[in-house]
C-alpha cells in the first residue's frame, strides 16, 4: 500500500461504522501497535442504548487505551475514543470533545456525519476518516466535507463489507485515497503519523 507523505501529518483518525462493522473493528484492534501517533475516534451505530457495553467489549482487544469520549476531554494521541450512545460527539477547534443531544441524523445518534464534519473543521488536513460496513449512508456527507478540507479519505473495500451501502456510497461520491480490506486496516492505522 502506498503510504505517501500525505499521511505524515495526520493527528486524528475517525472511524465510522454501522451494521457489520463491529466484527471488522474487533479484528483490527489487536493488531494496533503502541505507541500510536494519532488519536482514534470510533463512531458506531448501535441498537440498544440502555445497556451500552461497547467499551467493555472493545477495551480488552487492544494494548492501547480505549475509553468512552467524555465532554470537554482533550483529544490525545495514542488513545482510542468511543462515541457514547445516544449523543452526537463533536470536536472543538481546541481539540476537545463536546457532546450534543440534538436530533438524530440519518436515524442515528451518534451520527458519523456529525463527528466527521466537526473534526474536518478542527483538524483540516490533519484528519483521516475511514468508513466501514453499514446499511445506510451516514458518514458520506461528512467525508465530503472532510475531503474539501484536504483530509485523507479511506473506506473498507465494499466487496469485503457485510453491508456495502456505506463504503460504496462514499466511493461514488468522492475520490477515495485508500480502499482497504479488513486485513489491511491495522497496517494503514499503524503507519499514520
Amino acid at each position, binding site marked *: 500500500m502506498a503510504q505517501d507523505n500525505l499521511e505524515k501529518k495526520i493527528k486524528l483518525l475517525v472511524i465510522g461504522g454501522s451494521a457489520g462493522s463491529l466484527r471488522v473493528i474487533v479484528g483490527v484492534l489487536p493488531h494496533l501497535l503502541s505507541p500510536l501517533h494519532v488519536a482514534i475516534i470510533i463512531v458506531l451505530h448501535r441498537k440498544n442504548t440502555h445497556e451500552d457495553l461497547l467499551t467493555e467489549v472493545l477495551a480488552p482487544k487492544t494494548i492501547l487505551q480505549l475509553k468512552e469520549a467524555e*465532554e470537554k476531554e482533550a483529544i490525545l494521541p495514542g488513545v482510542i475514543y468511543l462515541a457514547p450512545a445516544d449523543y452526537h460527539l463533536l470536536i472543538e477547534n481546541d481539540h476537545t470533545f463536546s457532546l450534543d443531544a440534538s436530533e438524530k441524523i440519518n436515524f442515528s445518534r451518534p451520527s458519523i456525519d456529525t463527528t466527521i464534519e466537526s473534526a474536518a473543521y478542527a483538524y483540516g488536513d490533519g484528519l483521516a476518516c475511514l468508513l466501514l460496513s453499514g446499511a445506510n449512508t451516514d458518514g458520506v*456527507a461528512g467525508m465530503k466535507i472532510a475531503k474539501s478540507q484536504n483530509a485523507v479519505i479511506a473506506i473498507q473495500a465494499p466487496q469485503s463489507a457485510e453491508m456495502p451501502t456505506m463504503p460504496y456510497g462514499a466511493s461514488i461520491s468522492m475520490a477515495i485515497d485508500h480502499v482497504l480490506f479488513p486485513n489491511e486496516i491495522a497496517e494503514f492505522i499503524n503507519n499514520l503519523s
Partner: protein
Amino acid sequence: MLGVYISDDELELLITDLHDIYGYDFSDYSRASLRRRFERLYSIDKYLSVAELRYRIRTDADYLKRVIEEITVNVTEMFRDPTFYKTLREEVLPLLATHHFIRIWHAGASTGEEVYSMAIMLHEANLLNKSLIYATDINPSVLETARKGIFPLTKMKQYTENYIASGVQRDFSNYYAAKYGHAKFNEEFGKRVIFSTHNLVSDQTFNEFQLIVCRNVLIYFDKVLQDRVFQLFNDSLDTFGFLALGTKETLKFSKVVKEFKLLKPGEKIWRKTI
C-alpha cells in the same frame, strides 16, 4: 452542514450581535454545537450569505425568538435513561417525602417531558399535592409547549417502554388522553408546575430547592460557565438537597464538588452535605 459553512469569525460576530443587541450571552457555549445550529438555521431559512443572516438578526427583533428556538437544542424524552428515574423513585423521593413541602427545579426543562415524568412519579409516591415544580428554560417557545402538556401520540410507545424500564408496573396510558394524534397529560400534573423563562447564564437564584434537575444542558457550556452554574445551583439548594445531572455530565471537576457527595456510583445524582 453540506453547502453551508459558517467560519470561526462569522460565528463570533453572530454571538456578539445577540449579546450587544439583545443581551443574550452565548459566548461561553460550545462553538461546535453553536456552529451546527446556526448552519441549520441558515439552511432552513434559506439564507444566501452569513451577512444576510446577520442583517436579519440585527434589524428584526421579532426574528430573535426564532433564532433562540433554533440555536438551542430542545430534544428531550419522557423517562429518558430509565435507571435514573428508578434511582430517583427508590432513593431520592423517600427522603424528600420527609419534608412538609417539596420544591423541585427543572433547569433547561425544554418542552416538559422530563417535568411530566417527575410529576407522575410524585403522584405515584403520593407526594404531588405537597410538591411544587419550577420548570425553567431560556427558550420561551418550548415552555409554551410544556405548559400544554400535549405530546405526539407516536412517542408514547417509547415513553411507555422507558417508564416500564424505570421499574413500575402501572398502566402508563391512564395518565393521558389520546386525541387526534396527541397525548394530553392529565391536568393534575401540570397544576403543580410553574413554567417560567430563566437564563442560567444571566439570571440569579430565585428560591431554595430540595432537588434540582438539570440534564443535558451543561454539555453545551464551557467549563467556566459550567462552574458558574454549579455555583448557582449550590446557592439554590437546601442543605441535604439533591442535584441531578445528565448521564454524561459531572460535578467531579467543579469547584463546589467538596460540598457534595455522590449518591451512588454510576448515577449522576449528588447530595449537598453542607
